[in-house]
């Protein structure tokens, strides 16, 4: 099972329920990452977004893209050579286009492509697809990923 080899990345992700938006990492290499997540239909935020018309908020689509496409990739790129105990991360910019709604219970797949990773700044192009392989959103995300000096 190839996907098992990426479980260590899931364990290193600095998120937990209710703000973990990664179910599995399907592929990671030097060029980018791919992973999936199913938005739980009983999530609390659907009660308010929108009233009587639950749709996944765009900010959470962006967050999902960032956790899979940016942070998981960053952990992979860093983790090969560094102990990750002191990993610190922060999103520095996001520029997204949203094309289709994602409804409660839908599973999405995120694919990211590395633009650059230099001086601890990681910049990626990200794309999110729904279960019918239709593009849901796309954009460019960047963040700082650092490891404190021992």
């Amino acid at each position: 099972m190839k996907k098992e080899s990426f479980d260590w990345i899931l364990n290193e992700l600095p998120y937990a329920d209710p703000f973990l938006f990664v179910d599995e990492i399907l592929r990671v290499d030097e060029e980018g990452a791919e992973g999936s997540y199913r938005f739980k239909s009983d999530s609390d935020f659907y009660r308010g977004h929108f009233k009587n018309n639950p749709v996944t908020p765009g900010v959470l689509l962006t967050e999902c893209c960032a956790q899979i496409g940016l942070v998981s990739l960053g952990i992979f790129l860093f983790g090969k050579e560094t102990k990750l105990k002191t990993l610190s991360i922060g999103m520095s910019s996001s520029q997204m286009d949203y094309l289709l709604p994602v409804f409660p219970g839908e599973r999405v797949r995120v694919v990211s492509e590395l633009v650059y990773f230099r001086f601890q700044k990681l910049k990626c192009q990200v794309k999110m697809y729904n279960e019918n392989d239709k593009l849901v959103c796309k954009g460019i995300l960047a963040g700082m990923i650092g490891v404190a000096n021992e």
Partner: protein
Amino acid sequence: MQDEEKYQKLKDIIKIYLPEDVAITDIEKDSHLMNNLNINSANLVDIVLDVEDAFDIRLENDDMDQMQTVNDAMAIIDAKLKEK
């Protein structure tokens, strides 16, 4: 390339990343990029990458650490251009 030309080129890069509360005229040679010009670390990386392209040089982590002020940046650019 003359110093003044280099300085202008560097200023043209820096001004793209200035936050809204800092004016282009605030850029002085002894301005501290982060403390005086309020440039954050993510945008500092953008400046370094743009400097690399504009001057056709390559900066390393040490250069990044030393690049505190506009003058520091000028000195690093000079040193890298001489190495070429």
